[in-house]
């Protein structure tokens, strides 16, 4: 990634999926407006006008619709796109409806075939024929990249493909070094930055060091906030791990601890951390978008 003084300021997509990590009551009270692509696209562009430089999103029909709107408005090339895959919630829900993991695998295979993406289909067939999980992973990643490009257009500036925390943390727990190596190599070959969303930031850093994987090449997407919310095993351990990274690899998420903290105090905490590459923050109103990104720009990118 290389050292940089300017922080990447990203709009997060949680509000657009009607997610609140504070409480489901809060998400319900917001109503459905936030999930409308036109409204969400407008919030993203307002954030961009006030200092945001990109959009971090889970790849779902909701966020792809938002990208289509931004693309149609001719603004897509301004945004750095950080795509999180897979959108675990959607796949878990689908698995419950189509008969578990095997049913899900069948549905996904069908979707990949219907996408007519030759590279993804070829890689998928290779994976099935050889019982090769790496080829299947590549087929899936090509399929998701194709979905993003189809919705966001050729001018889209896809910067990073970030593995969802469920996959990252499961692979960390199982010590699957070969999986991380294959993912990093493959994503770099595609000209993108490999990303890892995790709720166990110190584990990720320590395992990468242990496996001699180059931390310079990746972004880590992990919760960092004054309240220590979602920072495992502890706030202090996460801060120590951050200090130990050779480069600013971290894109901090949950910086407002899901609305538990006031923006000003939350951003002050982030501004004083070392090795921060950027932040991703969700916004739910035009005024939030303006105020939050103005504040982030002022305090992080003076």
């Amino acid at each position, binding site marked *: 990634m290389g050292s940089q003084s300017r922080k990447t300021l990203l709009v997060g997509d949680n509000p657009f999926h009607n997610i609140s990590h504070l409480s489901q009551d809060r998400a319900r009270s917001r109503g459905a407006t936030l999930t409308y692509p036109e409204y969400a696209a407008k919030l993203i562009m307002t954030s961009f006008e006030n200092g945001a430089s990109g959009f971090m999103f889970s790849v779902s029909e909701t966020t792809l619709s938002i990208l289509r709107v931004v693309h149609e408005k001719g603004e897509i090339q301004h945004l750095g796109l950080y795509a999180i895959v897979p959108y675990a919630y959607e796949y878990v829900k689908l698995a419950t409806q189509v008969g578990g993991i095997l049913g899900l695998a069948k549905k996904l295979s069908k979707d990949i075939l219907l996408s007519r993406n030759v590279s993804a289909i070829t890689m998928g067939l290779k994976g099935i024929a050889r019982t090769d999980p790496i080829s299947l992973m590549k087929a899936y990643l090509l399929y998701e990249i194709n979905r993003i490009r189809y919705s966001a257009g050729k001018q889209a500036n896809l910067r990073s493909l970030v593995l969802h925390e469920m996959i990252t943390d499961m692979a960390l727990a199982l010590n699957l070094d070969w999986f991380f190596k294959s993912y990093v190599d493959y994503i770099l070959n595609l000209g993108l930055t490999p990303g890892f969303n995790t709720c166990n930031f110190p584990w990720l850093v320590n395992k990468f060091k242990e496996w001699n994987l180059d931390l310079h090449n990746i972004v880590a997407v992990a919760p960092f906030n004054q309240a220590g919310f979602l920072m*495992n095993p502890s706030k202090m351990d996460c801060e120590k791990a951050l200090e130990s990274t050779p480069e600013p690899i971290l894109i901090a998420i949950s910086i407002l601890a899901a609305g538990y903290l006031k923006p000003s105090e939350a951003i002050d905490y982030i501004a004083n951390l070392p090795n921060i590459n950027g932040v991703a923050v969700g916004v739910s109103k035009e005024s939030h978008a303006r105020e939050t990104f103005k504040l982030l720009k002022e305090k992080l990118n003076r």
Partner: protein
Amino acid sequence: MCEKSSITRRFLKKVFNDVQMIDGVEKLAGLDLDAVYVTTPIPSHFSVAKALYECKVTQNVFVEKTLAWSYEEAKELCDLAHSLGIINMVGYLRRFCVTFRKAKDLLSRNAVGGVSSFKAFAYSSDFLKTMRGSRAPISRGGVLRDLGCHAIDLALWFIGELQVSSAKLKSLTASGAEDSVFFRVKNSSGLEGEFCVSWNMRNYRMPEVGLSITGSQGVIEVNDDRVELRLNNGKSSILYRHALNDNVPFWLGLPEYYREDLHFVKSVLDGSNAEPSFYAASKVDEIIDQVERRAGENGQPK
């Protein structure tokens, strides 16, 4: 690892090089296993757990909720565990969630005085958009065993033994499907409670369980996100997960998974009792049987 599907076994073998893959429970015998987790669909819990004891695979067994498909099966497993096993536990995850633990603590300290009534709910949107006639809800075993069991387990944990006094079931997705359930309970001291359970609710992106417990001195309201105490003297407090020390040494999906696993493993290592045990969990199966019987008396499915 024991897995029936040969395709899944082949892929898992590639992912976990050093793990032996088996296609039948009886083949686990002789491997000198310290413990076994049963994570199969609910209808097979009984036969798998029974085989584990009878084939002398292990004396320590963890079964995902619900323990069995009926109270009769649950009682048989309790007897087997008592005669052939040592540690047994059922995966009622919410007992390890910080908000419910806090509520349990408040109740055990008599924070709202003597409890006179409660209301419990368990809602999700899992099958809200399911096509009429789909078999998926039926194959999941019904909303009571899939989701409602958590609310029942918490009520039993908080309050103690309960008897069902009336019940209504609704089939919304297909004939014979158990999609929505309302039932009332009481205990020998005159305490009364009611349960609303549905997987066809709007705006429950994630499954949510909650209870409102009324005592002589106030009310405790608790769900997956927060615990609120409102006393008759006007004092009140709300605690979110943020304030309840929710961090864990390793996060995977939710912190309660870690705590649950730790409790079981520690119990196996120490030889100490694990809770919820088969016996405690069998009481949930008993309530579910009572609900289905009561609803049947009204000419409703099952």
